[in-house]
């Protein structure tokens, strides 16, 4: 118990404290103005102040809404197309060159085009997140389906399952744990795509909040915003991990 406390709580806490102390000492020693680097206390005070404002929660809500809508669309479409690619050879061979060439255009490169097409509205970000998530899911679903234990397919065939039931009842379920970890990776990419899109053209959102703060040299707000972005990203990832564990732990 003491050893556990020591290793898991005290030493990590010491690490965080050391980093904060170095940060604070740098600010004090070099007399850095808060524009360059505010002290950790100033950042925490700013964060506490932000949490009490309406504008902050509106930005959080806008970013989360864009993320959740795009993520849901991207995951569903991605699994569906990935399943088709995995199951249907003709479709796999025709679709592969198109999927492979679009896959290498990273979502961030789409940001200017989504702004031309959809303006600074939510739609543009939703499309962008869906695109980012879609390709992660397509590639991992197709790969997971291709690696399903062949015995399962033969058992299904023996039980008289047709290709549709085999795909949905056997292959998709066998691939589910892999899909869960892909969904987690996709969430990280999708979340950061929202933030990046909001840097370049948005009317609200956390990305806009921190670029505006950077333009007005409110560095404490920038760092506080980064912390919030990191916390939400980690929270979303933990939530998906938790859901997946609850669902698949019995295997």
């Amino acid at each position, binding site marked *: 118990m003491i050893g556990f406390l020591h290793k898991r709580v005290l030493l990590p806490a010491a690490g*965080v404290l050391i980093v904060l102390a170095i940060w604070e000492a740098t600010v004090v020693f070099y007399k850095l103005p808060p524009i360059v680097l505010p002290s950790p206390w100033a950042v925490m005070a700013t964060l506490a102040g932000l949490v009490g404002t309406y504008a902050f929660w509106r930005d959080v809500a806008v970013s989360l809404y864009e993320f959740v809508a795009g993520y849901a669309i991207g995951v569903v479409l991605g699994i569906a197309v990935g399943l088709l690619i995995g199951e249907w050879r003709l479709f796999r061979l025709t679709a592969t060159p198109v999927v492979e060439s679009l896959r290498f255009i*990273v979502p*961030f*490169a789409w940001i200017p085009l989504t702004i031309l097409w959809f303006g600074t509205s939510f739609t543009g970000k939703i499309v962008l997140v869906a695109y980012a998530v879609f390709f992660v899911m397509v590639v991992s679903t197709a790969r997971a389906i291709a690696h399903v234990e062949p015995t399962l397919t033969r058992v299904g065939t023996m039980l008289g399952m047709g290709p549709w039931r085999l795909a949905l009842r056997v292959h998709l379920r066998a691939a589910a744990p892999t899909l869960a970890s892909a969904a987690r990776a996709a969430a990280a990419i999708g979340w950061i795509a929202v933030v990046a899109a909001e840097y*370049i053209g948005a009317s609200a959102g956390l990305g806009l909040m921190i670029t505006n703060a950077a333009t007005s040299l409110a560095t404490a707000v920038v760092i506080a915003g*980064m912390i919030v972005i990191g916390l939400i990203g980690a929270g979303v990832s933990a939530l998906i991990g938790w859901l997946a564990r609850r669902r698949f732990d019995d295997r």
Partner: protein
Amino acid sequence: MAVAEAGATPDRAPWLGPRASVWLLGFVGALLALVAWTLLSQWLATGGGVINRLPPPTKVARELWRYATGDLWRDLAFSLRVFVIGWLVGAASATVCGLLLGRVAWAGRVFLPVVEAIRPVSSIAWVPLSVVWFGFGLTSKVFLVALAVFLVVIVYAVDGSRRVPSDLARTATMLGMNGWQRFRSLILPGTLTEVLIGSRVALMAGWGTVIVAELVAADSGLGAHLIAVQQSYDVPAVMATMACFGIAGFLMNALFSTLERRLVPWRHDSADVAQ
């Protein structure tokens, strides 16, 4: 076992010969996509939907050709310079830190949680802060790319420095190796192997960071060009520049995959976990 293998052979026999059918169908798929794109652009141009700016593929191809015979190489050189410098700095510092945190037990316990706390804050979220700190020039973008690569590679470096096969460790003890010899011939090669794989995985994260950094701090490079043509509402040029990003990303990935297959053939297959 023999039964399982017999059953695992491809169940559907290709009707053209495997190679030819792959190429032919792939070609048909690409052609279908281009036809669909052309039809869609014509339908949208006559007032079909919300998007009224979708140029046909021929127009984008013409724009791509014009860019490729003009400023592309200058812009690409800018972006690649940022990318390569940042990538080398990030991978090198991650190797050093990874060895320290992986091999020195107390340092790992104290500072790895700090690294883990920073990792969820993607390098993209650092863009505005980096602009405040380093301005719009090269330094700011190199910092961001280095950070992106560091945050990926550090995990691989720590892992590699810890994973010394026990039979090799026993052999080393038997041969009476001292600390430095063990480090040089046992720990360092294992770490560098993992660092190489991590650097491949970090490729796309680093390249994506270059794009965002250049879009935000647009003074030079492919990203700056993309913003410039976007602001003049030149959709064909926007799409041509996106294609350049895709081609460059693809070539880098192919180059590094080949390199990895040559240098660490035994680790190649398991490398695709984190995209």
